[in-house]
């Protein structure tokens, strides 16, 4: 059965191999320059990036984001659906191999190939981005840190779990819908939906987040934002480690309850509509206001995932996706055994 699975999959595998090799070559050529930049002084590395470097950084992120979805739609969805459409399942299922073994083998071969392809791509992109990912700075030259939702899903081990999930999702939808094209479309749609839902509502709670009370001061202030009528609406602060992923940022009053900011703050700090105040340079105008806030007992409560939780979160999310894949695969086997003919 492995022979047949491989024979049917061979062309896909070759295509993937060529594509991954091409990506690896581009990254291998451009990567060492970044490492040299970082070696010359980690803190200033972002100032020395060329537009081409930034484009490549984003291209790497997008590539790792897109590849599992494409694999799910183009490898997963047609796996069973194409057989059902062409009627070849009646040939395959009447050889001396049970349907379950047929499906499990095909799933395993496809998942293994997806793991290798996505794993290699992620590894190459992560290696290329490593000189930038490791650097902690206030702005990071507008590039996302590796714990932020934009970057987290394209680093570490999670992309591999996404690929497995996408394949199993595609195969299952193909078996249920019985036609490859609708199955491909629905696989893409559902995969994207899951990739939106998980970082918004699931990932923050995979590991219990840390809650900290931060004194509002120029050293911690991240920004003051105005509401629609020009009054100060909210304040955001940052934690000691710039790589932390901040989930919520609330102002508390002296009694420890969530408070709206006092009215006088607008007169005090509402001057130029700067929403992001960066460090000491522009801090003078708001300094007294923040001191008065602190004196009146206002503090900031920050809920965050600390930067060092990166790998804990990675493994937790990997486990989540693999568990979902296993459940889905179980359903797919059941469906194939009992509902298909």
């Amino acid at each position, binding site marked *: 059965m492995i022979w047949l699975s491989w*024979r049917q999959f061979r062309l896909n595998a070759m295509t993937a191999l060529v594509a991954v090799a091409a990506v690896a070559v581009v990254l291998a050529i451009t990567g060492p320059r970044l490492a040299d930049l970082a070696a010359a002084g980690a803190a200033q590395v972002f100032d020395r990036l060329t537009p081409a470097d930034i484009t490549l950084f984003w291209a790497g992120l997008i590539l790792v984001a897109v590849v599992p979805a494409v694999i799910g739609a183009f490898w997963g969805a047609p796996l069973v659906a194409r057989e059902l459409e062409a*009627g070849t399942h009646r040939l395959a299922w009447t050889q001396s191999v049970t349907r379950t073994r047929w499906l499990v083998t095909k799933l395993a071969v496809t998942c293994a190939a997806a793991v290798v392809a996505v794993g290699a791509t992620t590894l190459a992109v992560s290696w290329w981005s490593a000189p930038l990912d490791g650097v902690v700075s206030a702005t990071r030259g507008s590039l996302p840190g590796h714990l932020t939702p934009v970057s987290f899903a394209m680093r570490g081990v999670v992309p591999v779990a996404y690929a497995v999930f996408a394949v199993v999702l595609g195969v299952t939808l193909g078996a249920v819908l019985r036609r490859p094209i609708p199955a491909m479309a629905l696989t893409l749609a559902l995969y994207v939906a899951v990739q939106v839902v998980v970082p918004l509502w699931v990932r923050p709670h995979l590991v219990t987040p840390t809650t900290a009370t931060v004194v509002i001061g120029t050293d911690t202030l991240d920004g003051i934002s105005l509401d629609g009528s020009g009054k100060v609406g909210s304040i955001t602060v940052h934690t000691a480690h710039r790589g932390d992923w901040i989930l919520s940022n609330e102002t508390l009053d002296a009694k420890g309850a969530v408070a709206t900011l006092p009215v006088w703050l607008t007169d005090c700090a509402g001057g130029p509509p700067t929403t992001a105040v960066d460090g000491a340079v522009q801090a003078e105008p708001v300094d007294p206001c923040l001191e008065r806030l602190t004196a009146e007992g206002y503090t900031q409560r920050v809920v965050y995932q600390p930067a060092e939780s990166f790998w804990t979160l990675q493994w937790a999310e990997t486990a989540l996706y693999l568990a979902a894949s296993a459940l889905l695969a179980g359903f797919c086997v059941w469906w194939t055994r009992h509902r298909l003919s």
Partner: protein
Amino acid sequence: MTAVLATDTLGKRYGRRWALKDCTLQIPAGRVTGLVGQNGAGKSTLLNLAAGLLRPTTGTIEVCGGRPASDPDQLAKVGFVAQDTPTYAGLSVRDHLRLGAHLNPRWDDDLARSRVDRLGLDLGQRAGRLSGGQRAQLALALGLAKRPELLILDEPVASLDPFARREFLQLLMEAVAEQELSVVLSSHVVSDLERVCDHVVVLVDSEVRLAGEVETLLDTHHRLTGPRRGTHSLPADQQVVSARHTDRQSTLVVRTERPVLDPSWTVTELGLEDLVLAYMERPAPDRPGAPAAAGADGSPTLEVLK
């Protein structure tokens, strides 16, 4: 009689429609059994149930002594050539033979290769480029080289031209003679089966209408032609299968174990095709003798015309 395929009140329902209903049947081992019926009569459903591709809604089916497709051993006992003889369009003839070798423990590679050689198929050719007849032959080669106890063929010649039909059935019969296997094949064209079957099952409206050995059936069925008359005057042992009347003449198909003695009838033998057609146009057994009764009335409005 050992049965290679036995069903008991077997039924398969799709939504509210019964594709096969109350089918109790024994198909003998070591024979070639033809399954005849119009399109949609339930032939494919029965064969797919036997191959384990479908699961019964009611009743049971046993093939070669086991539940169809229950495990690899059971699967190895039954060869199946599906309707339209599906093959992998992108895989070559050679790949199909490898597929068979990898997936079947009893695979007979010499047999498969010699059949493919005899057909003049190019091993490197993709199955998608083969003609319908060649594809059917490839599917048959796969089914035979699996060395099954029972080979099931679902409308194997339906899409073939007359020459390819003849060639396919001829090669099938040669293989049957060499391999001593049981065969069940279906067709809606009786003349295809006439040459090859020694046992026949007729399905009408999802139900088994007739099952038996071809020779016995032909021996016990006669066509009676004579002056117009009702069927109520026939001897008790003569069971009317179909009756047709014109203004002057009656033509009956009757089933009887004994010779027909009435001198007013001209008795002629029936071919398998005529016999099967007589059963196909007959009403369901739960409304027995409807056309016969109409004939007895002599009512011209109920005459059956072909």
